[in-house]
C-alpha cells in the first residue's frame, strides 16, 4: 500500500467527497480520508472547511489516526478558535490516559494549539504532567511550559509553572533536565532582567552531571546554557572547563562547537601563566580541525566560527595552515571561507606555501573564488612584509595570463600594495599600463587611474593615459569619475606645463556637466585651490598619505567578543550580533566575555603587586596588565600600574619626580634640583666624544628633556618612529623610542593631538612581554593636550612585569587610554636597552661558558659596512653595555671576545672577527637561549652603524 496516491486527487468536488468519507462508519475509510486531508494540507490546499468532521475523528483508540487528527488541529485551530474548543475535552481526557505515550502526545499537541481560550484548559493537565511519574511525559511537559509562555507569558507566571520548571532541573532523568534547561533558557531570554535561570555553583554542578548522561541534543542545550554563566573566579572557570573538555570528542559537531564556546568564554578568566591555560589551548585545535571533515554544510558553519576563533586567539590554530587548503571539489562556500582563514593564518613562517596555493587557486574556474584568491595574494603582501616582493611577482605572472577578471583584480590589489609600500614597486607600472584597455570594471579602472595619478612624474605618457579615460567621462561610474578628477589634478600639480588644458577639461566636466553633487563639490574645491593658491593645492592634494594597515578586514574587537559568546549559532555564521537579524526583544541581550577575576590566592600577585598600593587594588590592576581584553573592562588605570620597588636607580626616581612633580614648575625656571642633577650623573663608561652631554642645558630646554636624556647615556638611542598614526587613534599620534641610561630603561614618547578636541586622562599599559617590561610609573601628562599640541614624556620602565614569550621576541604590545578611547599598538624594542651594566664576564668564566654552551646554539652573522677598527668597535659597544672580555690578533684579524647580560640574567657571549681593510666583520654568538641571538645581532648592527 502506498500513500502517494493521496497527493494526486484534484477533482472538483473533492472537499464534499472527503466530508462524506470522514463521516463514514468504517474505520479504515475514515483513516484514509484523514490521510487525504493531510496530504491536501501539505501541498497548500485549504481544507479548513472540514474542521468539524476531522475533529469528530479524534475520539479513537487508534494512535496513528489520533496523531493525524492532532496534526490537522495544530494547523487549523488558529483559524477556527471556536471549533477548537470542541477538542479540549478529548485532550483533557487523553492527559489522564494510562498510556504515557498518549498522555505526552496530548500535552505536546495542546501546547501547539495557539488559541487563547484553550490555554486556560491546558493549565490543569499541564500541572499534572509536569509531576507525572513517567519521565517521557515530564520531558514533554517541560517544553510545553515554553510553548504556553510564548502564547501567554503572564499566565505561566501566575500559575507558578516557572517554579515547577526550575524544580525539574534537579530531576533524576537527564532528558527531563535538558528539556527544562532549554525551556528556561528560552523563557529567560524574553525576560533579560529576571534571574530566572539563577545559575549558581550548585545548579551548575547538576547541569554538569546531567551533561554526561543525556542525549546529544540535551548536551547542546546544557552547554549553551552553561555558556551564559559567569564563574565567580578563575578556579571555578577552570573546574568547569575541565568537565566540559571531554565533550570535544563527541561525534556531534554541534556538541563540539558548543563546548568550544564555553571554553573560549571561560578561558578569558584564566591567567595565561597557568599550565592549564596552555593545555586547554592545545586541546582546542584538534577538534576544530576535525570539524572540517564533517559534511560540507557543517564545515561551513565550523569555518565561519573558526574565522572568529582565529581572530580572537590566533595561537590555537597557527600551526594548522595546511588543513585550510582548498580541495578541488569543495563546495564554493567552503572554498571561500577557507581562503579567508588562510589569509588570517598567513605569517612569515608559512607564506611560501600559502602563496603557492593561492597561485594555484587563481587558475580555477569559479570567478568569485579566483578573484578572492587574487585579492588574498595582495593581502598577504600587505600583511607579511617579507613576502611583498614575491606577491608582486606572482601578481605580475597572473596579469600575464590576460584573463580579464584576474588582471582587473590584480590591479586593484597592486594599488593597495603601492599604498602600503610607497616608492618600492613602481617598476611594475609599465606592465600595468599595457593592460589599460582590458579594464572594464569601475574598481579596476579607478585603481589604475589612481596609480597613474600618484606616479604621474614617472610615467612619460601619463597625460595621454588619463586623457584616454576622459573621453567617456560621463559614462563612467562615480568612483572612476572622482578618481579621474583627482588623478588629473595630481598630474597637473606635478607637470603643470603640459597638462593645463587637460585639467581645465576635467574641471569643467566635473563642475558643469555633471549632476552628481559629490563630484561637483570636489571639482569646485580643486578649482578654487588651484586658482587661489597652487602651493596650498600641492600641499593638500599631494600630501603624504597614511599607509594602509593589514587589519582592515578584522572584526571590530567588541563585536568579536560578543560573537565569541555566540559560537555555533546563526550570529556566528552571519558575523552579526543577533539584534541585526532577530526581530523583537528576543535574543537581543547583549553578551560579553567575562572579565578576568583571579581567586584570592592567585599565584601571580606577590611579585607584581605595586609596592605601596593598598592590597585591595590588586585585582583591578593585575588582570588588566595581563591581557588587553582585561584592559577594556578594567579601564580604571588610576593606580600605578606596576610596582618594582623604585630603589634600584636614583635616576629613575628623578625621572618620576620630574614628570610627576609637574613640568609647569620646571618651566618656571625653578631648578628643581634633585631630578636634574640625577640626570647629570656621570655615565658609567667612557663616553665617546661625540656624545658629550649638554650637561648644563639639561634643564634649560625642557621640551628637549627626553632627547637630552638620550644623549646623556652612552647607549644608542634610535630616532623616534611613529608607533600609532593619528588615523588609527582618533587623532592621537604617538611616536617614540627606547633609551637606556645608567641602569634604567625608559620609553620616550611624543604625543601629538591631531584631533579637534582636547585630550585628557592619559594612561598606559603594556601587555605581558618576553622580558617583563612594564611601566614603572604612571603616564603623566601635565595638562590636557589641546589640539595640535605635542608633548614629550619619558616613561620609566621596569623589567619585573609578567613574562610571556612574544613573537617576535622583542614585540611589545601597548595600550594607551585617553578620554576618547583606548588604543592599541605594538612596537619592537631594540634589545640593547636590556643589556645590563654588570655584563662583563670574567675571562676564565667566559672560556668555560663558551665551551659549555653546545655548538648548535652558536649563531653566525655578518655585519657589513662597518669600517671601524677594533678599538672603536670595542668602545662603541661598551657604551651600550657590551663588554670586551679579551682581544686577540690571529693572522692579521682582530678577534674580540665579548659578553653581555640581559635584564633577565641571560648571558650572551660573542666573538667578533674584524679584518683590517675589510668593512664586514663576522659575529658569532653563543647563548643558552639561542632565540635571542638574532636580536642581539640586530642590536650590534644598530649600535655599530650609528
Amino acid at each position: 500500500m502506498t500513500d502517494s496516491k493521496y497527493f494526486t486527487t484534484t477533482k472538483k468536488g473533492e472537499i464534499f467527497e472527503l466530508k462524506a468519507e470522514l463521516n463514514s462508519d468504517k474505520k479504515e475509510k475514515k483513516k484514509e480520508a484523514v490521510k487525504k486531508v493531510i496530504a491536501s494540507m501539505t501541498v497548500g490546499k485549504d481544507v479548513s472547511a472540514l474542521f468539524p468532521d476531522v475533529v469528530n475523528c479524534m475520539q479513537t483508540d487508534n494512535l496513528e489516526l489520533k496523531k493525524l487528527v492532532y496534526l490537522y488541529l495544530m494547523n487549523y485551530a488558529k483559524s477556527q478558535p471556536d471549533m477548537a474548543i470542541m477538542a479540549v475535552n478529548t485532550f483533557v481526557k487523553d492527559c489522564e490516559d494510562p498510556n504515557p505515550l498518549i498522555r505526552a502526545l496530548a500535552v505536546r499537541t495542546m501546547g501547539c494549539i495557539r488559541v487563547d481560550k484553550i490555554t486556560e484548559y491546558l493549565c490543569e493537565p499541564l500541572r499534572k504532567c509536569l509531576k507525572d511519574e513517567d519521565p517521557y511525559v515530564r520531558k514533554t511537559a517541560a517544553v510545553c511550559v515554553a510553548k504556553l509562555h510564548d502564547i501567554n507569558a503572564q499566565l505561566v507566571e501566575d500559575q507558578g509553572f516557572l517554579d515547577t520548571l526550575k524544580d525539574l532541573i534537579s530531576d533524576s532523568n537527564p532528558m527531563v533536565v535538558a528539556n527544562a534547561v532549554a525551556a528556561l533558557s528560552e523563557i529567560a531570554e524574553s525576560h533579560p532582567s529576571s534571574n530566572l535561570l539563577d545559575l549558581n555553583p550548585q545548579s551548575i554542578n547538576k547541569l554538569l552531571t546531567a551533561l554526561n548522561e543525556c542525549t546529544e541534543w540535551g548536551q547542546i542545550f546544557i552547554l549553551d546554557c552553561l555558556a551564559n554563566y559567569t564563574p565567580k573566579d578563575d578556579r571555578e572557570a577552570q573546574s568547569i572547563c575541565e568537565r566540559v573538555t571531554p565533550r570535544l570528542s563527541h561525534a556531534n559537531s554541534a556538541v563540539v562547537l558548543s563546548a568550544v564556546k564555553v571554553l573560549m568564554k571561560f578561558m578569558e578568566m584564566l591567567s595565561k601563566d597557568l599550565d592549564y591555560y596552555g593545555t586547554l589551548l592545545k586541546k582546542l585545535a584538534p577538534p576544530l580541525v576535525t570539524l572540517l571533515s564533517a559534511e560540507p554544510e557543517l564545515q561551513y558553519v565550523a569555518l565561519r566560527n573558526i574565522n572568529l576563533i582565529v581572530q580572537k586567539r590566533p595561537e590555537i590554530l597557527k600551526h594548522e595552515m595546511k588543513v585550510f587548503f582548498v580541495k578541488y571539489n569543495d563546495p564554493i562556500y567552503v572554498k571561500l571561507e577557507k581562503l579567508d582563514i588562510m589569509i588570517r593564518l598567513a605569517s612569515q613562517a608559512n607564506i611560501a606555501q600559502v602563496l603557492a596555493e593561492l597561485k594555484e587557486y587563481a587558475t580555477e574556474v569559479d570567478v568569485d573564488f579566483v578573484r578572492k584568491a587574487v585579492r588574498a595574494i595582495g593581502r598577504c603582501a600587505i600583511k607579511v612584509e617579507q613576502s611583498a616582493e614575491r606577491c608582486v611577482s606572482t601578481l605580475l605572472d597572473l596579469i600575464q595570463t590576460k584573463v580579464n577578471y584576474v588582471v582587473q583584480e590584480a590591479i586593484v590589489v597592486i594599488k593597495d600594495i603601492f599604498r602600503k609600500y610607497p616608492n618600492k614597486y613602481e617598476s611594475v607600472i609599465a606592465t600595468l599600463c599595457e593592460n589599460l584597455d582590458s579594464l572594464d570594471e569601475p574598481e579596476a579602472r579607478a585603481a589604475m587611474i589612481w596609480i597613474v595619478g600618484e606616479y604621474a612624474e614617472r610615467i612619460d605618457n601619463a597625460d595621454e593615459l588619463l586623457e584616454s579615460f576622459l573621453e567617456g567621462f560621463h559614462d563612467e561610474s562615480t568612483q572612476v569619475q572622482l578618481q579621474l578628477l583627482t588623478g588629473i589634478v595630481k598630474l597637473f600639480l606635478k607637470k603643470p606645463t603640459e597638462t593645463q588644458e587637460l585639467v581645465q577639461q576635467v574641471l569643467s566636466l566635473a563642475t558643469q556637466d555633471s549632476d552628481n553633487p559629490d563630484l561637483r563639490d570636489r571639482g569646485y574645491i580643486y578649482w578654487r585651490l588651484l586658482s587661489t593658491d597652487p602651493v596650498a593645492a600641492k600641499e593638500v592634494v599631494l600630501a603624504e598619505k597614511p599607509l594602509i594597515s593589514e587589519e582592515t578586514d578584522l572584526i571590530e574587537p567588541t563585536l568579536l567578543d560578543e560573537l565569541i559568546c555566540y559560537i555555533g549559532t546563526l550570529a556566528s555564521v552571519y558575523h552579526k550580533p543577533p539584534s541585526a537579524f532577530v526581530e523583537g526583544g528576543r535574543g537581543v541581550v547583549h553578551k560579553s566575555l567575562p572579565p578576568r577575576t583571579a581567586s584570592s590566592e592567585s599565584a601571580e600577585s606577590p611579585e607584581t603587586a605595586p609596592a605601596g598600593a593598598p592590597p585591595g587594588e590588586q585585582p583591578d590592576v593585575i588582570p588588566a596588565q595581563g591581557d588587553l581584553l582585561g584592559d577594556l573592562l578594567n579601564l580604571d588605570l588610576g593606580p600605578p600600574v606596576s610596582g618594582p620597588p623604585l630603589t634600584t636607580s636614583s635616576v629613575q626616581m628623578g625621572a618620576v619626580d620630574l614628570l610627576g612633580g609637574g613640568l609647569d614648575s620646571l618651566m618656571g625656571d625653578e631648578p628643581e634640583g634633585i631630578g636634574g642633577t640625577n640626570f647629570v650623573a656621570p655615565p658609567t663608561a667612557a663616553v665617546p666624544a661625540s656624545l658629550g652631554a649638554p650637561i648644563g642645558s639639561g634643564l634649560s630646554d625642557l621640551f628637549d628633556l627626553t632627547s637630552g636624556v638620550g644623549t646623556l647615556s652612552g647607549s644608542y638611542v634610535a630616532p623616534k618612529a611613529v608607533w600609532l598614526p593619528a588615523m588609527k587613534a582618533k587623532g592621537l599620534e604617538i611616536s617614540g623610542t627606547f633609551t637606556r641610561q645608567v641602569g634604567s630603561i625608559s620609553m620616550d614618547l611624543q604625543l601629538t593631538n591631531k584631533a579637534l578636541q582636547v585630550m585628557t586622562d592619559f594612561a598606559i599599559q603594556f601587555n605581558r612581554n618576553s622580558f617583563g617590561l612594564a611601566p614603572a610609573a604612571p603616564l603623566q601628562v601635565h595638562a590636557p593636550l589641546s589640539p595640535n599640541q605635542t608633548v614629550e614624556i619619558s616613561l620609566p620602565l621596569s623589567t619585573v612585569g609578567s613574562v610571556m614569550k612574544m613573537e617576535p621576541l622583542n614585540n611589545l604590545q601597548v595600550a594607551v587610554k585617553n578620554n576618547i578611547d583606548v588604543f592599541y599598538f605594538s612596537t619592537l624594542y631594540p634589545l640593547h636597552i636590556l643589556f645590563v651594566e654588570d655584563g662583563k664576564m670574567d675571562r676564565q668564566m667566559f672560556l668555560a661558558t663558551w665551551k659549555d654552551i653546545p655548538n648548535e646554539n652558536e649563531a653566525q652573522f655578518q655585519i657589513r659596512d662597518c669600517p671601524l677598527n677594533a678599538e672603536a668597535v670595542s668602545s662603541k659597544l661598551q657604551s651600550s653595555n657590551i663588554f670586551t672580555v679579551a682581544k686577540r690578533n690571529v693572522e692579521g684579524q682582530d678577534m674580540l671576545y665579548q659578553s653581555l647580560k640581559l635584564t633577565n640574567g641571560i648571558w650572551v657571549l660573542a666573538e667578533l672577527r674584524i679584518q683590517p681593510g675589510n668593512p664586514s666583520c663576522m659575529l658569532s654568538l653563543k647563548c643558552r637561549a639561542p632565540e635571542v641571538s638574532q636580536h642581539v645581532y640586530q642590536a650590534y648592527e644598530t649600535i655599530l652603524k650609528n
Partner: protein
Amino acid sequence: MIGGLFIYNHKGEVLISRVYRDDIGSQAADSAVFSSSGPFLGERLGGSVRNAVDAFRVNVIHARQQVRSPVTNIARTSFFHVKRSNIWLAAVTKQNVNAAMVFEFLYKMCDVMAAYFGKISEENIKNNFVLIYELLDEILDFGYPQNSETGALKTFITQQGIKSQHQTKEEQSQITSQVTGQIGWRREGIKYRRNELFLDVLESVNLLMSPQGQVLSAHVSGRVVMKSYLSGMPECKFGMNDKIVIEKQGKGTADETSKSGKQSIAIDDCTFHQCVRLSKFDSERSISFIPPDGEFELMRYRTTKDIILPFRVIPLVREVGRTKLEVKVVIKSNFKPSLLAQKIEVRIPTPLNTSGVQVICMKGKAKYKASENAIVWKIKRMAGMKESQISAEIELLPTNDKKKWARPPISMNFEVPFAPSGLKVRYLKVFEPKLNYSDHDVIKWVRYIGRSGIYETRC
C-alpha cells in the same frame, strides 16, 4: 529554535511541511512578496507560512546561480538546507538558533528516514508522508530536537501504527524509559543464540601532492564501524594501538610492546558515538561503552603522521605547440607485495577543447570520456611494489579563448586491504555479568579497508 521544517522536490513543490512556531510566518516574510508563488498556492490559507515556503523556493531552489551558502537569510528569516539526491530539506527559523545543531539535526533526520524507508526520494517521501509527520512530531518538539535514535524510535513508531492497544503497561513504561533514559540507544532484553560482532576499520586516505612529488597535505580519516549481535546489556571495551595508551602501558611492560613489534600510531583527534563514555576517555583514554544493537559507527578519527600512501602518481604533461598535449602518468604501488589493491582508477583531466585522444597503457583499460573531460584508466587488481604507466596524446582544437586551461589535478581511486594510518585493533572485550556468556564465547571479526578519499596529484 527551529521554527519549521519543509521538504521540497527538485521542482520546489512542498512534500512535507511542519510548522513548530508561528513567528516564521510573521509580517516580515509577508512583506517580501514573491509574485511567482507556485500554481497550486492560490489559496489564502496559512498565507504567512506559505510566504516563507515560497521565499525558499524562489531564492534558493529556483535561483539561477549555484548555491552560495547553505544558510540563507531572506527577509529576516533564516533558511538552513541540505540536499539529498534531488530532495531539499529546509529548516526555517527567525531566531538566533544553534546553527551547527540545526544541520546535525537535518542529517539525523535523513538518517532516520533512511532507516525507516530506505533511499530519500520523492516517491518514498510521498509514500511515507504519514510516517514522516509522526516522526517529525516525535523528534522535534517546539523546534527542540528530542531523542532521534532509530533503535528507540522503532520501538513505538512503526509503519503498522496500531500498536497502542496491544501494549502492556510494562512495555509502555519500558519504551518511555528507553526514550528518555541514559542508554537511549539500546533496549533491554535482547537475546541472540550466537553472540557475534564485526568490526570494520574503514579508512579514507587523502592526499594532495605537488607535481614534483612533494606532499602538500595528507591525512587519513577513519571510522570504526561495529555490527553487534550481543545479548543483554553488554559492557564493551575497545583497544587499539593508540600511541598514548601504548606508551602509558609501555612504562610497566616495556619489553612486551617491543616484542610484539607493533607500531603505535599518533591519533590527531577522534570523536565517538554517543554511547562511549567521554569522561572516561578523557581521563583514562579507554574506550568503553554499551553498544546499540546492530550496526553503528563507534568512532571517527584522523591521523596525519606516518601515513602509508598506497600509491604514488608521477605525472608528466608536455604541451607540444598549441594543439597538442602529451601526457605520461606512472603509478607505483607502495605496500607489501603479498597484498592486492583493487578497483584502481586513475582520472586524468583533459582540456575542454580536446578533439581526440590516443592512449596506450601497460595494464588495465584506459578510455577517453569526452562527456567527463577526462581519460579514465582502470586497473582491476595490482599487487604491492609494482609500477604501471599510461601515455596519451591529446589533440586540441585551436581556440582563441584567452583563458588558460586550469589543469585540474589527476585523481585516483582504489581500495586496499589494510589501514593506511597503521591503526590496529588490539582487543574488543565484552562483559555481560547478568547473562552467562563470557568474552571467549563471543565470535569476533575484524576487517581493514583503506579507500582513497581525495587522492590528488597536481600536474
